[in-house]
């Protein structure tokens, strides 16, 4: 077997050193009745690399890959072009096959990269500090709600109706057990969100307000008023960013007063991956750093005075504090953080702003084109690279019909809010630099055919 270096000669020699007659002697502590006599029955034996590769090729071909078709899905996961050098670098064994940097003397590569990543995320979000990544945006979001609870010692969180419904679900799952009280609502197909409701609801019991920016329908709204009202009542503003490329074009939440900004970093470096692994981004004001979950990398010096980096403030973490930890997170998303950071380094400010501009311009062109179709209306006044259309009929079967025409034409709100009939005509369309003018035209033509 190709991954096992021991030969039978080795095995015999080693058993002799151990003083065991056979391998079974080493499993004596397993009660006989729990031991399997041989390989588990009914399962196949080992297979050649070629056979395994073929099996996966066959399965892979049963999926419609995004880059092979006109593609317009978003809602928390975006298709962007990832430069080839990103994947090349993350495949270097020194990054790919290293462990969490617990021995910093021989892990400066990962540590310096994390320090750079933290700085990039903090600057992108307009915050003071950031951590070394979370599992994904949705878990980062509930960690932020938990963190706000620890800081304010309050348990009422007000969630914008524009927050991704899966993020709401995750928060709800956790709240059931942590005793947090979540104030939520369904979105409406209107140009503005429910910020009036949020402003109204903030009171002395409120731990935090959670607003997605741009929101699930693609709308962009100023967070300043909510931040002001929240701070007035001793509550925190948590902003959630599912499309970090947007921040190359629009104000950072931190600039508008957000106390904690979390996000999904998948757009840069990581790819679609059918939903995972992704990379959760987490940033906040400096004063809250000791309540922040997740790993942190900090600068220090070595015994010779050279600059170096270490994991720090680990007294917050479970491997020291056990049941008093700020989070149960252990393994995070290091390699995806690396991919994000490389992609961001390749972009730089110039590339990030340019990329955002290309995304926005194509989205505007697509919105203009698609709303030429009779019966199709644009819900948004404002948007970045994603907007919501009101179709003249239920959107979910339309999306399936588009797929039959080899167009992956957005996310129906019926998929996200299966029980909300008032939303069922809504179609959320994302347009990135990977959508060509030809793709947009193909989409429009197909949509028009289906609707007529």
């Amino acid at each position, binding site marked *: 077997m190709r991954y096992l270096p021991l030969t039978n000669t080795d095995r015999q020699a080693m058993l002799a050193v151990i003083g065991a007659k056979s391998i079974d002697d080493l499993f004596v502590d397993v009660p006989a009745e729990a031991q399997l006599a041989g390989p588990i029955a009914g399962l196949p034996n080992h297979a050649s690399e070629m056979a395994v590769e073929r099996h996966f090729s066959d399965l892979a071909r*049963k*999926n419609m890959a995004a880059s092979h078709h006109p593609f317009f899905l978003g809602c928390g996961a975006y298709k962007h072009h990832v430069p080839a050098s990103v994947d090349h670098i993350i495949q270097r064994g*020194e*990054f790919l096959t290293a462990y*969490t940097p617990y021995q910093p003397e021989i892990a400066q590569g990962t540590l310096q990269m994390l320090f750079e990543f933290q700085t990039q995320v903090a600057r992108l979000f307009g915050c003071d500090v950031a951590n070394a990544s979370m599992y994904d945006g949705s878990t980062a979001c509930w960690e932020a709600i938990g963190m706000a609870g620890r800081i304010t010692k309050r348990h009422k969180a007000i969630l914008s109706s524009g927050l991704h419904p*899966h993020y709401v679900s995750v928060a709800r799952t956790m709240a059931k057990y942590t005793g947090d009280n979540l104030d939520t609502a369904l979105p409406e197909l209107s140009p503005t969100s429910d910020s009036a409701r949020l402003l109204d609801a903030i009171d002395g019991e409120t731990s935090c307000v959670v607003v997605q920016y741009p929101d699930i329908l693609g709308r962009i709204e100023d967070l300043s008023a909510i931040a002001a009202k929240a701070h007035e009542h001793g509550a925190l503003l948590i902003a959630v960013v599912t499309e970090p490329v947007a921040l190359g074009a629009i104000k950072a939440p931190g600039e508008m007063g957000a106390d904690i900004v979390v996000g999904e970093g998948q757009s840069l470096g990581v790819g679609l991956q*059918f939903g995972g692994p992704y990379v959760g981004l987490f940033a906040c004001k400096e004063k809250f750093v000791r309540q922040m979950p997740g790993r942190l990398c900090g600068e220090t010096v070595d015994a010779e005075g050279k600059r170096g980096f270490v994991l720090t403030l680990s007294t917050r973490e479970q491997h020291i504090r056990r049941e008093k930890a700020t989070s149960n997170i252990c393994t995070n998303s290091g390699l995806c953080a690396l991919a994000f950071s490389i992609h961001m*380094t390749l972009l730089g400010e110039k590339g990030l702003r340019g990329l955002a501009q290309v995304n926005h311009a194509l989205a505007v062109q697509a919105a203009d084109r698609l709303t030429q179709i009779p019966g199709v209306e644009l819900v948004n006044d*404002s948007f970045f690279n994603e907007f919501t259309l009101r179709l003249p009929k239920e959107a979910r079967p339309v999306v399936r019909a588009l*797929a039959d025409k080899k167009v992956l034409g957005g996310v129906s709100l019926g998929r996200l809010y299966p029980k909300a009939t008032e939303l069922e005509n809504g179609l959320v369309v994302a347009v990135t630099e990977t959508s060509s003018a030809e793709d947009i035209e193909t989409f429009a033509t197909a949509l028009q055919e289906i609707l007529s």
Partner: protein
Amino acid sequence: LEEALIFEIGTTDTTGVDLPEVGNVTSRLGGLERNRTIGMPGLSEPETVRHYTRLSRQNYAIDLGFFPLGSCTMKHNPRLNEKVARMAGFADVHPLQPVETVQGALAVINELAVWLIELTGMHGVAMTPKAGAHGELCGILAIKAALEARGDPRSVILVPESAHGTNPATAAFAGFSVENIPATSEGRVDLDALKARLGPDVAGVMITNPNTCGLFERDMKAISDAVHAAGGYVYCDGANFNAIVGRVRPGDLGIDAMHINLHKTFSTPHGGGGPGSGPVVMSKALSPYGPLPFTERHADGRYSLVEEETVGERHPHSFGRMTAFHGQMGMFTRALSYIMSHGADGLRQVAEDAVLNANYILRSLEGTMDAPFAHSGPCMHEALFSDSGLAEGFTTLDIAKGLIDEGYHPMTVYFPLVVHGAMLIEPTETESKATLDQFIGAMRSVVQRAKAGDPSLKSAPHHAPRRRLDETLAARKPMLVWHEPEEAVAAE
């Protein structure tokens, strides 16, 4: 040459990408244009590749050498798995595509789920947890949901002393109070103490088997029976499944839930700290409470997803969603590729070779180092030593740093807490005898130096990219992001 930070090399005017040209449009950004500088440095592609290549060479990795971190299972990461995970049909599909367009992706999840169930002898599996600790949370939430469903809100989770730190953290997060269970002098759970503590307030136990002393919990079945008899559930931390895969099925030991670290037992790469994946296999009792979404295979070979829309009919007791989408697809493809490559026969060989390698180290070093549980029988996949016998002032940390100079990544140190100055060595099955022999030699040499009080060991490592780093300074005044040097700021 030391590698500077990107903020010191790059400028906001440099970029490593070229963008397509698009026409100008009237902005519809709601008047929220970002006008202030972001301060994001860019590098050209050559500079980028060089920066990260140089950085990478400051890292130790399994590709470079032996990495015997106990409990972390640093085994070889097959390159086939990397290739498979990158196939466009898996890497380039969106989680919200119509299910008709992702049948192959759903098949991968389903096939892996079947393997995990068969290998563990359990009833169901939750695929979405994103890592081991997330899996623990999944298991504990399922237990909580099951208790609530029967109207029995128990509040205590029992955790042995030697548990992973995530175990009590998880239980506390879910609102349980955590109580410790002592270990016997053999390094195993004290069954009598456990039984004595069981009662109507005990929701369950979280137990690691093989445990963190590297031993198999002989009484596992008895523990499960006792906990069940007392109305509780048994959570097993499956981080050490590598030792028994293919030889023992946890389901046969009465376990109700166990997370499987795909990045340990099934070799998805650790990546310098993730991503991992922690599917949770569950007993018939707990399966109804597992999270959304999951895959279903139909008689005609089609796959569908159970999500919010159909959960009412298909899975009404689910405790809900743990993450936005379907879990760690990129880890599923890799793990399934690993599993198929080994097959039933190979996975059994994995466990046997892992245990053989660990016992070889235990018996080769027990004459040199104190092995507190060497008398407890064979170890499983890892061998535990203590700092007993070192010269005055010499510690486990010195051994670890000395090993760095010998060209090795150190073992896990100061864990488990039940042993003073613990050193936990897990060789895994993908190391050759020659590598183990070399390591044993190096270990003996370093330990002899620590016993003899060699002062140069106190200042090790000498041959690493950095000498010992000042962690106290880092924690006292945390510098977590880069700032312009003062003079540069002043000059602006």
